[in-house]
């Protein structure tokens, strides 16, 4: 293990404190955006915690991500109002267009698809949020347009 790596430093910081595995994993994800396999194994070694236990924690909490998320994070609200207004169909359309499931990223790492429970603007239901930008009164036929909008945006940034 590289002693200067982020994981080594985080492990050294939390090593002696009981019950601090979640804090250590938070720190890794805070910097990297997800918890890579190499960091998880380094934490296991550095903190003396079996890797099996670390993955039990990582996969129990929805918060932790095991893969690098896509550049544009698409949050489809499936809270009560949005769901009743048909956001399940919008979610299905995103899955179909992107070829990924919930909680997954596209192989080119451009998009990450997730469902969330209520984003606090039920008046606009059904709602999707992409990297902080809110799209209200969604219908499945708007999906392709939104994806193209972000593709265009990333292309221009290059």
């Amino acid at each position: 293990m590289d002693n200067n790596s982020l994981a080594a430093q985080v492990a050294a910081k939390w090593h002696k404190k009981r019950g601090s595995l979640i804090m250590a994993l938070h720190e890794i994800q805070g910097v990297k955006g997800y918890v890579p396999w190499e960091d998880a194994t380094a934490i296991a070694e550095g903190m003396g915690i079996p890797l099996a236990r670390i993955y039990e924690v990582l996969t129990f909490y929805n918060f932790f991500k095991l893969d690098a998320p896509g550049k544009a994070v698409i949050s489809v609200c499936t809270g009560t109002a949005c769901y009743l207004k048909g956001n399940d169909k919008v979610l299905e359309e995103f899955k179909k267009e992107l070829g990924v499931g919930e909680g997954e990223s596209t192989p080119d790492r451009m998009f990450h698809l997730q469902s969330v429970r209520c984003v606090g603007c039920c008046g606009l239901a059904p709602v999707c949020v992409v990297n902080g930008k809110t799209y209200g009164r969604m219908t499945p036929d708007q999906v392709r347009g939104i994806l193209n909008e972000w593709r265009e945006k990333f292309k221009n940034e290059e």
Partner: protein
Amino acid sequence: MVKLKIDNFDVEVPAGTTILDAARQAHIDIPTLCKHPDVDPSAGCGMCIVKVNGRIMRSCCTPVAEGMQVITGDAEIVDVRRTVLELILSNHPNACLTCIRSGHCELQDMANVFGIEAAKLPNLTKKWEKDESTKAIVLDPSKCIICGRCVEVCQNQQNVWALSYLNRGLATRVTAAGGIPLADSPCIKCGQCSAHCPTGAIVEYDETQKVWEMLRDPNITTVVQIAPAVRVAIGEEFGFDFGENLTGKTYAALRRLGFDRVFDTNFGADLTVVEEATEFVRRFTESPESLPMFTSCCPAWVDMLEKTQHDMIEYFSTCKSPQSMVGALAKTYYAEKAAIDPAKMRVVSVMPCTAKKWEIVRSKDMSCSGYQDIDVSLTTRELCRMIKQAGIDFRSLPEEEADSPLGEYSGAGTIFGVTGGVMTAALRTAYYYITGEELGELNFKEIEGLEGIKEAEIEIKGQKVKVAVAHGCGNIQIVLDRIRAAQAAGEPLPYQFVEVMACRGGCISGGGQPRVMLPGQSKPRGITDDIRRKRSRGLLCEDECAQNRLSHHNESVKTLYKEYLGEIGGEKAHHLLHTHYFIRECYNKKES
């Protein structure tokens, strides 16, 4: 003591007893799919509900209280249990006809008891891929009911931490860390997960078909050997009581299956004792710095050493296991003696163990005859299956003898299958090698029984030998930590000689042993301490009644050295009967 009423019977039990355990005093087996005497309650399945003062609670994790009124089964309770069972079944494939555990499955038992006919609920079973990567055990998460026994056994009893939960809720699955193949994890293939699994989610890697094909080939000479622990468990599949020693019938069954030569791993055990005692005496008298010495006949323990206990490698006995010694000699010494071309010989072993399947391909030392020394290692369960497939009436078979020369054994050889047995056998012979005299008392009571770590001090001509016997991998860790602490502090070693068996009770409760229900047996199926004691008795009794109880007096072993090997611990013996150990890492190749 706490007094309570269970189904209107007065029951008195120690404080802290759970209702589930207390109910046995009222002759009631409360149904459960997750609680097993070897593990702490996980409150996972929900089948064990009872009414406590009118309220429905889980009996596996509710301790008794003074004056409690418990009802364990009324119409409402039965109804709720049936619903719980239907919910479990709605997430389990309806595939009993093609499941290897069929007839030995606790979930199937339960479905029969509750008279489940047709599925009322839609089936939610997910099809996960089977993990066969270890080629020793097969993990099929589709059949898992998330009872938690295997995870509890793997993590806390064995301290191996190969198995774990992945995800949560309906998506929960038991896998190695992060869903990688088990073979890349610290799994030592002990199979205790399989021994405790109530369903067919973790079973042995079945290789019976390979063996049938060898038996069918007229150009092949088939040689078979059976391990000590097989003979005291095989009968359970044919209605004999736990622990009944059925060596003679097992030989007869093997001949009827078509094996050309029937040998006994107990011969290999005697040979192991002779080599290992010699190795210990050398280390003890000539190079005390090479102590402690660990026994090496348990492949799961060898696997653990090579993967996670690298600082202990130099203290390992270099002796191969009895299985591997017989394998090596079958294709060399015996093939020569009987004028059989080893290329046309196939050696099969029958073991109580799933890890033995891995041992036969562990390193190139396992092919010292120029061929793979042992071609297939079957578990007891697989052999029972073959006997049934062949329609052999096991119960009425005559008692037969093993073939010569790899069939003769002493009482010391047969107790290799039980915790404390290897140490006892080795001490008898080591004493003789050091003093030139036989021990007066051949039993060492301190190292018998199911205590996790047993210790004894044996005086040999004024010199004291401190020994430890550990079984169950969690206990092994404690012994290792004591040794490391003494080494670090520069203090005298707590032990000079340590016997290790990965499974609680030793090989008699190995991961490949039968799991039947006999009349009058309290649930669950599979291994419990009661069964461990009975199987142990079966082996210990054979030793006590044996004409020869000393490995160094096995005449076939003596002949072997005279005719073929030369000196005990000599060059030829080293080539065929000893091995090397290597550091192997886990988790090094994550699939991307």
